[in-house]
């Protein structure tokens, strides 16, 4: 680019370039009107630009200083005032000791009133953690919270395993003359503070669902009556006034010992004859001939497990209900099985009055079926659906059940959470 020298001064010259701008340059012995090509131009910044750059520089410097101060402050706070680890001195008065990154004691806090009372007497003044822990243990011992034979427990909560190990080593080294137990915070207590509570004999009507019994082996011996205190589970209910008989083969055991039979509720449905579904009609066995042996008077109540998905919502109207079975049919069986029926054909004891007892050709049975009453269908409507015609040779009495959360119409609250259809076979 060519320039025309417009003015010459002592220290500079004014040049006009081809873009009609007038510029200042070094006066290398120029003369006015001279055409030059390579001047030394002035790089004078604009006054406004200089002001802006000056303020930007100041602002940047201030921001950098602020950032530096904040970073340093946060680092200092994190190192000195932030709790990085906690030591819990376990005794009757639990005292918590907060430590910073350097291991210095930040604060002491009590977990209960005893600890707070104890801490009122203690002044934390620039002591290291070992001294503080010693002082607290001595204070607790003087208060009688510790006996001389007790071994103090220290629970350390650290951010990582390395810090935990370091603190543990420091405490064990610091208490080399005293025996202490150091645990990581969260591990179970070495001492069991309370004796185990006795098992409850209350029937299970809470949320703990007992395991459904497995279908028993036909050849298995009848299990012993359930012992309620064995596993803390529900006690097997017994019929009022009737002794509890052992369960014969082919029937399931009571839910008092569910763990013996497994916990698969679907298995009883596969056992065919041995299971009764809630809507199934159970035909009682008929005695063969007039010389057929009379079934003995029922002595006990046995339960047939029926899988029922809606068992939680059902309760038996008639008490007592089996406490833990998923869905049981309570059959008051005779003492002995009828001949020719095998072990699976246990007849329920009739509940009908003696005056209304039918002839041997027409036997009365009461089938109590636990089924959910959901929706607008009432218990009576459900009973109608399940009603057996009068022409049937077996008269089945069907009682509808109410869900757990709704009180039955009779006003009795059944304890069992699951459905247990109950079939009572009358005496022939």
């Amino acid at each position, binding site marked *: 680019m060519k320039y*025309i020298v417009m003015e010459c001064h002592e*220290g500079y010259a004014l040049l006009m370039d081809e873009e009609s*701008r007038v510029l*200042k340059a070094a006066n*290398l*012995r120029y003369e*006015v009107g001279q055409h030059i090509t390579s001047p030394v131009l002035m790089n*004078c910044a*604009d006054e406004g630009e*200089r002001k802006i750059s000056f303020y930007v520089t100041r602002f940047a410097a201030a921001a950098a200083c602020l950032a530096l101060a904040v970073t340093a402050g946060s680092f200092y706070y994190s190192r000195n005032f932030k709790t990085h680890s906690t030591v819990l001195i376990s005794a009757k008065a639990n005292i918590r000791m907060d430590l910073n990154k350097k291991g210095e004691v930040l604060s002491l806090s009590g977990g209960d009133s005893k600890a707070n009372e104890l801490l009122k007497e203690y002044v934390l003044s620039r002591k290291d953690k070992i001294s503080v822990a010693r002082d607290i243990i001595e204070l607790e011992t003087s208060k009688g919270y510790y006996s001389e034979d007790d071994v103090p427990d220290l629970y350390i909560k650290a951010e990582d395993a390395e810090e935990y190990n370091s603190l543990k080593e420091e405490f064990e080294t610091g208490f080399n003359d005293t025996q202490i137990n150091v645990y990581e915070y969260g591990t179970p207590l070495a001492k069991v503070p309370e004796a185990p509570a006795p098992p409850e004999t209350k029937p299970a009507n809470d949320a703990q669902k007992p395991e459904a019994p497995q279908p028993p082996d036909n050849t298995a011996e009848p299990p012993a009556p359930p012992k309620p205190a064995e596993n803390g589970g529900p006690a097997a209910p017994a019929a009022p006034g009737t002794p509890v008989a052992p369960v014969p083969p082919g029937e399931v055991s009571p839910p008092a010992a569910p763990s013996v039979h497994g916990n698969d509720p679907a298995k009883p449905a596969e056992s065919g004859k041995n299971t009764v579904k809630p809507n199934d009609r159970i035909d009682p066995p008929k005695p063969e001939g007039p010389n057929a042996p009379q079934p003995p008077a029922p002595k006990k109540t046995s339960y047939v497990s029926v899988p029922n998905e809606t068992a939680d919502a059902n309760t038996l109207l008639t008490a007592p209900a089996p406490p833990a079975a998923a869905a049981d049919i309570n059959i008051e069986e005779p003492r002995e099985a009828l001949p020719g029926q095998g072990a699976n054909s246990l007849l329920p004891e009739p509940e009908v009055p003696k005056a209304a007892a039918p002839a041997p050709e027409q036997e009365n049975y009461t089938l109590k079926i636990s089924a959910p009453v959901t929706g607008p269908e009432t218990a009576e409507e459900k009973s109608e659906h399940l009603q057996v015609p009068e022409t049937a040779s077996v008269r089945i009495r069907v009682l509808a059940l109410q869900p757990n959360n709704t009180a039955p119409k009779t006003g009795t609250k059944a304890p069992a959470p699951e459905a247990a259809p109950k079939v009572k076979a009358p005496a022939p």
Partner: protein
Amino acid sequence: MTSDVHQIISQVYKAKKDSHAADELISAYMPFIKSETARFLNRPPDQSDDELSIAMFAFYEAIKNYSRLRGSFLKFAALQIKNRLIDNYRKEKKNKGQISLDVNDDDKTDLKETIRDEHDDYAENELRDATKQEIEELSAQMTEFGVTMNDVAENSPRQKRTLEICQKAVSYARNNPEILDDFLRTKRVPLAKLAEGANVERKSLERHRRYLVAVLLICTNGYEIMRGHIMQVLKGGEKK
């Protein structure tokens, strides 16, 4: 001592606005400038040395760029001189190894005399004189408008976008001679007409009013050499 410091600073602040005061300050501090140049050259500078001219120019830059926040003026000026000389040295370093035509050989013959001179010194001198005459006329006419060449230099657009805006306005004025006549008659820049006709912001033109005075004067009759010098750019402004 304190009064001397305050005197220098006041002189510097005065020289920032007044070119004559700047020239006087430079003349007053020539020994300082020479000493700084000698420190760089490791020898006393001649009056014909480019380094001395550059050092004087650096001193003038120091006057223009100085503020009280920068501390002592002389230290600041010495730093400016040193930096400028270093920059010039690096620039000239590219031409290292080349022989100057002015240097005499052993047989006391200038190299300049050995090559054919294609320059027409006579035509060159004539052109320079004619240009000088135009510049003097222009300066005199600018004085009537209350504008000096220093004002034009300080008011010239630096950014390319601003330069294009000014060139658009000048091109519009050249295409409309009545605007130039009106400008010469009233001795005021018709900013409203230029902004409206060239479709540019009036505010941008107002910022560079003194620059526009010089260029519009060049665009009037006369000043053919200078108009020819900047015509290429003005044609570019017309195309845009």
